[in-house]
């Protein structure tokens, strides 16, 4: 055999199941289930009302079928909307976390015990529907930074949650956002007070474990005036034959002169060679640059999921605000991704940058979909978009759908796009210098993604590089 061809992929490394007793709500969705989830979380009346409003809206909405992905119908009544490990610790002491959960996160490379944790990174560990541990909370509190599960924030900081929750992604924004609003169970909450530069990286690790459940997490990050925060999320799930739904909502709010940097390393189970199983990752992520000179920067490295449907976007409302989107999306095996960003320019002199790198291997299908909208009042807005696609092998596909809508003639728009194929000659050149075929592909791909990787926090850039190597391993003959 010669040349480049799809071969057997290396097995998914994080596909193990933790044997732990769970409290699972029976499959099905109705108003009682929504009320039950709210009750389990001990939520105030305004929350349950908001959830019900979203649920009633959701009933009238239709699942979107415009993305460039194919999958069978989802039976929303067959999904369980709540699963939690039974022995739940009181979050005051990490010593009370079930050792099995600690071991699970250890195995995923996320030590929960603080002393072992990478210095400078605080972690919120979410297992199925609940947060099981949040590290460094006391340390962060010294700076006035709140970092806790959102269920806890609803109880302890209702004034902040009520003020901002749903202001960036309304309860009826889209089908999956409405569903999330009705049934979300946990996620992270961050508040960085005025003028504070958050002293460490914050991160959340999402783990799906139970079968036949969906994970619906909700994240809300608020950066008050002149503050700065860098946040990272990671995710993985066991290998199962069924498809599992992950429908998250992330809302970011940056006030005057504040900056939020949000990085994602997504490694949900992608399904097997034949496309059986894997996570449906249908998420809504949006940041609002509410204040002047504010900045929201998204960096994502997407290697997992059977199907990805996500468009982390920025609403550039404050004058001189900045939105950024740096993305690497890899599809191999039979993975499908329809991902990109939305940049909505409202304020004057707002600027946005989009750098998207799509890599397709095996029978993967990779679509970039982006919207840049310059509204009437956005005098002097600027956008720079760059979409690069790389193909490995001849059974995969790359697609690009950039939408541009300009309503102010002073706008300056730049768009660059390229498609390249890792050629036999490129790989041969590197092999002739002594590199193995796999190292050759890894080097070419990493070079291709460099502009995105350099945006990641240092420790995670190393992780991303490694992950990319693993997910493409075996895709070259």
């Amino acid at each position, binding site marked *: 055999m*010669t040349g480049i061809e799809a071969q057997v992929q290396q097995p998914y490394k994080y596909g193990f199941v933790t044997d732990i007793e769970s409290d699972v709500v029976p499959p099905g969705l109705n108003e009682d289930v929504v009320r039950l989830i709210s009750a389990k979380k001990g939520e105030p009346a305004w929350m349950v009302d908001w959830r019900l409003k979203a649920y009633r809206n959701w009933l009238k909405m239709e699942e979107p079928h415009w993305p460039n992905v194919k999958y069978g119908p989802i039976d929303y009544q067959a999904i369980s909307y709540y699963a939690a490990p039974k022995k739940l610790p009181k979050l005051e002491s990490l010593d009370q976390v079930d050792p099995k959960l600690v071991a699970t996160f250890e195995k995923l490379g996320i030590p929960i015990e603080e002393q072992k944790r990478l210095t400078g990174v605080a972690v919120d560990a979410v297992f199925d529907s609940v947060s099981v541990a949040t590290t460094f909370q006391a340390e962060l509190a010294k700076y006035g930074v709140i970092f806790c599960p959102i269920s806890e924030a609803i109880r302890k900081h209702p004034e902040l949650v009520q003020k901002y929750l749903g202001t960036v992604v309304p309860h009826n924004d889209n089908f999956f956002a409405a569903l999330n609003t009705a049934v979300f169970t946990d996620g992270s909450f961050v508040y960085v007070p005025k003028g504070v530069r958050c002293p460490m990286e914050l991160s959340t690790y999402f783990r799906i474990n139970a079968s036949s459940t969906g994970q619906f997490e909700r994240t809300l990050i608020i950066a008050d005036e002149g503050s700065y925060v860098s946040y990272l999320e990671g995710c993985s799930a066991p290998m199962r034959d069924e498809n599992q739904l992950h429908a998250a909502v992330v809302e970011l709010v940056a006030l005057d002169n504040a900056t939020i940097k949000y990085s994602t390393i997504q490694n949900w189970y992608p399904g097997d060679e034949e496309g059986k199983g894997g996570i449906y990752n249908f998420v809504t992520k949006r940041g609002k640059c509410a204040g002047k000179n504010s900045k929201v920067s998204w960096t994502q490295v997407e290697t997992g999921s059977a199907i990805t449907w996500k468009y982390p976007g920025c609403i550039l409302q404050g004058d001189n605000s900045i939105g950024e989107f740096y993305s690497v999306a890899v599809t191999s095996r039979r993975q499908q991704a329809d991902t990109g960003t939305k940049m909505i320019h409202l304020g004057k002199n707002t600027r946005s940058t989009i750098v998207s790198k799509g890599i397709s291997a095996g029978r993967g299908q990779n679509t970039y979909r982006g919207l840049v909208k310059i509204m009437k009042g956005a005098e002097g807005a600027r956008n720079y978009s760059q979409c690069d696609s790389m193909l490995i092998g001849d059974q995969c596909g790359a697609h690009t759908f950039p939408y541009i809508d300009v309503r102010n003639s002073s706008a300056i728009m730049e768009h660059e796009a390229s498609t390249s194929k890792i050629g036999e*000659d490129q790989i*041969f050149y590197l*092999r002739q210098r002594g590199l*193995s075929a796999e190292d050759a592909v890894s080097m070419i791909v990493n070079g291709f993604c460099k502009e995105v990787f350099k945006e990641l926090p240092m420790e995670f850039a190393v992780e991303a590089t490694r992950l990319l190597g693993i997910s493409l391993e075996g895709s070259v003959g």
Partner: protein
Amino acid sequence: MLEVRGLHVAVGGTEILRGVDLSVKAGEVHAIMGPNGSGKSTLTQVLAGHPAYTVTAGTATYEGKDLLALKPEERAREGLFLAFQYPVEIRGITNSYFLRSAVNAVRKHRGQEELDPLDFLAVLEEKLKAIGWDDTLMNRPVNEGFSGGEKKRNEILQLAVLEPRLALLDETDSGLDIDALKTVANAVNKLRAADRSFVIVTHYQRLLNFITPDVVHVLADGRIVKSGGPDLAHELEAKGYDWLRAGAMVS
């Protein structure tokens, strides 16, 4: 060093080499000349192991080993180097990172310790000094935006750093102006050594004005039709290739 016997090679079903015999001893410099399409580049590519070429008959022995049984990277680690006619570009990877990875792949194979970036820098500076070049190419992405001359120079620089025992140069002179040609030729001359052999493929005699080969071969229609000393190159320059091709057909 290298023994090629009755080598037949096809690409996409078309036979390009039709029984090549070549014997290169340690420290020798062989030039392979010939008209366009005679199979010169194919010979270097197949010796380096390009997967697009199929060996249909014949053998190639390199330092006593069956060369054709080795993967391209194994040949490279065993000290076979090909200076490409068309070096490829690799976005986002600096030349120095690439070269250090290559050096370390070879060192690992030899059971030597891998070089960290600082150690590598020291080795690199020593090699650059030996051939009288500076390091302006090192921090740029591999071959990206390089001029034709820079690409060729980069190939020779890699040769210098990787210290192969058998170096194949595929039309390294093509596309070079006379000054660049001299620069490259001087570097090659400095790299000649008793334990290092060269096979230099060239279309024109002019490179051989600066690098004096031990043996000159003429490859035509997939076979070596004539071999001789350095003077053969001058004869070819004056007479062209047709007289040899006709001869080859008759014989």
